[in-house]
Structure formats: structure tokens, C-alpha cells
């Protein structure tokens, strides 16, 4: 381990660390190590964020291969522009901003592709009014299977939220970003973020209404 000093803050920058040490560093510190030339630090960042980023993208574009492509591209750009990252925002906010912009760019380019949904149109989804195919809980005694079914229904419910609201909704309800972070990621004003999340919740509730009626809020639903 070499102990270098950061030019700005004078704080020690560990530019070459054992893999186990890197895993203990916060994202922002890892980025400093990446900029110092240690690519192993970027591997740790990828391992840390790939799952949640991929999940987020999958809920936006609903195509596994498209979600994977965008996730790859987001990481590549984060790496290439690592020197432009400033430790004034969380790394995750920066990464999700890149990914969200990539999704928007792709949607702009492939507006006619039915699997990608327009962020502009409120009712752009082709399957907006399709009812959710609900499993009958009585037919499925196996709890694990029931849990899987419920997860699938929730994912389908999220997919039914119009794309312009889904982005903010997923960032808040699934990825648990703060309102301020969502504003930074989406480039929207705080009031617009709040409004989109609320509208997203309304659409989600509407989509999940049949399931809510079948599964009253009893807290033992396996989730």
C-alpha cells in the first residue's frame, strides 16, 4: 500500500491497495483510486452497483439485453470520464445520471421500437390497459412460489406506470434515492420530481388494485 497525498485536500490517497482493502472504501474514495490509475478499484465499483443499476434499467426499458447494453455503456462512460467526477455528489447519483441519459437517448433514437417506451407521452404504453394476470393464492400453497409470483406481479405493475413517471417512481420506491438525488439524476425540479413520484404511485396503485383486493394488507405476504 502506497500512501500518497491528495493535492487538494492533503488527505491520504491509497492508490494501490490490496483487493480486500478496496472493498472497504466508500464509492467516492474508490473513484479517487481509479483516477490515480488503479483499475481494480473500478472492478469493486462495478461489482457493487451492477445489480441495482441493471434492475433499474430493466424496469425502465423492460428488455434484458437492452438493459445490459445500457448498463455496460454507463460503466464505460463512468470509467472514461472518471477524471471529471467531482466528489460533490455521490458516485451512485453520477452513475444513475449517466444511465438515465443513455436511456433517454436510446428512446429518442428508437421511438418506433415497441419495447422502449416514450418518456414524452403520458399514455405511450401499448399495453397500458391490459389487466394483470393474477395468480390465485389458494392454488399455490408453496410460499416461495407465491413470493415469486407476487414479485412478478409487482414488476408487471411497475411496467404499467407511464414511462415519464416510472423513472422517478423506480428511483424512489425501488432504489430508495432521496428526492434531491432524483432531481439531480433526472435533471428535473424538485417539485416536478415530487409530482411525478406521486403520479407514478397513483398509476401503480391502480395497476395493483386487483392484487390489493385479493391480498389485503396483512403483512404476511412474504415480501
Amino acid at each position, binding site marked *: 500500500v502506497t500512501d500518497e497525498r491528495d493535492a487538494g485536500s492533503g488527505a491520504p490517497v491509497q492508490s494501490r491497495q490490496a483487493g480486500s482493502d478496496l472493498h472497504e472504501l466508500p464509492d467516492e474514495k474508490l473513484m479517487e483510486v481509479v483516477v490515480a490509475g488503479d483499475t481494480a478499484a473500478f472492478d469493486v465499483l462495478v461489482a457493487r452497483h451492477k445489480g441495482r443499476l*441493471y434492475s433499474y434499467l430493466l424496469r425502465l426499458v423492460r428488455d434484458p439485453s437492452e438493459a445490459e447494453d445500457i448498463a*455496460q455503456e454507463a460503466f464505460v462512460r463512468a470509467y472514461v470520464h472518471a477524471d471529471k467526477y467531482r466528489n460533490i455528489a455521490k458516485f451512485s447519483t453520477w452513475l444513475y445520471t449517466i444511465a438515465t441519459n443513455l436511456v433517454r437517448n436510446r428512446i429518442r433514437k428508437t421511438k418506433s421500437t415497441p419495447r422502449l417506451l416514450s418518456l414524452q407521452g403520458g399514455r405511450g404504453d401499448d399495453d397500458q390497459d391490459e389487466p394483470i394476470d393474477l395468480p390465485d393464492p389458494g392454488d399455490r400453497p408453496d410460499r416461495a412460489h407465491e413470493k415469486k409470483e407476487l*414479485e412478478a406481479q*409487482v*414488476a408487471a405493475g411497475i411496467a404499467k406506470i407511464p414511462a415519464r413517471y416510472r423513472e422517478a417512481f423506480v428511483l424512489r*420506491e*425501488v432504489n430508495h434515492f432521496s428526492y434531491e438525488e432524483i432531481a439531480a439524476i433526472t435533471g428535473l425540479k424538485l417539485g416536478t420530481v415530487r409530482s411525478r413520484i406521486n403520479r407514478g404511485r397513483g398509476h401503480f396503485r391502480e395497476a395493483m388494485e386487483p392484487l390489493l383486493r385479493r391480498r389485503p*394488507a396483512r403483512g404476511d405476504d412474504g415480501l
Partner: protein
Amino acid sequence: MALSAAHEHDLAAHLAGCDACAAEMAAFDTLSRWTAALPVEEPPANFEWRLKLRLARIERQATRVDWPLESQPRRPWRGAFEFGGALAAAAVVVVWIGAASWRGSTPQAPTPALPPAPSGGVLTQLRNDDLRVGPMPPVPAVAAAESSAADSLR
């Protein structure tokens, strides 16, 4: 976006007395719990491997094209090699120009035969063929001197 203590108190009081709002609140709580508990979807197993390949390719390209000169490692033989290359290129250009101008100035008719060169210095031993130019005209001063010398001998 947490409520203030006063607002939270008011909300609790309202929910305690309003079944519709209490049901709505319970529904949103349930939905929140469901979405929060969604499992993280993992990308395909070769995700990181593919990413590493892409990053390695980018690194290679950056090394080849965008690497700033000041950060390139110094190779001691590089300067000599570059100078030798430039010299060789210049020599090729000079030879090529010389050959081209020679072809352009060579007379098509055969050069007339010259009498044997008189003995003398090095220059007189050179033949016109060797100089690759036509016969030299007599130098006027030398010709006049030769003529006056001949006259004086007579």
C-alpha cells in the same frame, strides 16, 4: 420528505377517525413494502467479463492515439531511429530527383568521340563521359595565350 411532528400528529388523528383514508394509507404502505422488497435482478454472468474487455480495448486505443506526449515513456533509441529514418528518406528523395533530372537533360544523340585527353592534372584526366555533360568550350583567356605562344614559336 418526512412530515413535521405537528403534521404527523394531525395525520394520525385524521386516520384514526377516517376509515377511507386509513384504508388508502394501508394500501400505500403495502405497495411500498412490495416494491422495496423486489429482488435485485443480476445481469448475465459474463457482464463483468464483457465490460473488462471493452475497457481494455479502450485503454489500448487511448495508448495508441490519445496518450499525451509528455506521459509517454522515454525510449533512448527513439531519437536516433527517427533521425536515421528521416536521413534515409531525404537520401531517397535526392537520388530520385537527381535521376529524374539526369534523364531529362541527357541528349538523345550519341556524344561525339573526343580526342585523347592531354596529360596533365586530375581534371584533364576526366572525360566528358565521366562528367556526363557535353564538350567544354575553350576558355577564351587560355585560347588566346595558346595562340600567342604558337605565334611566338613560329
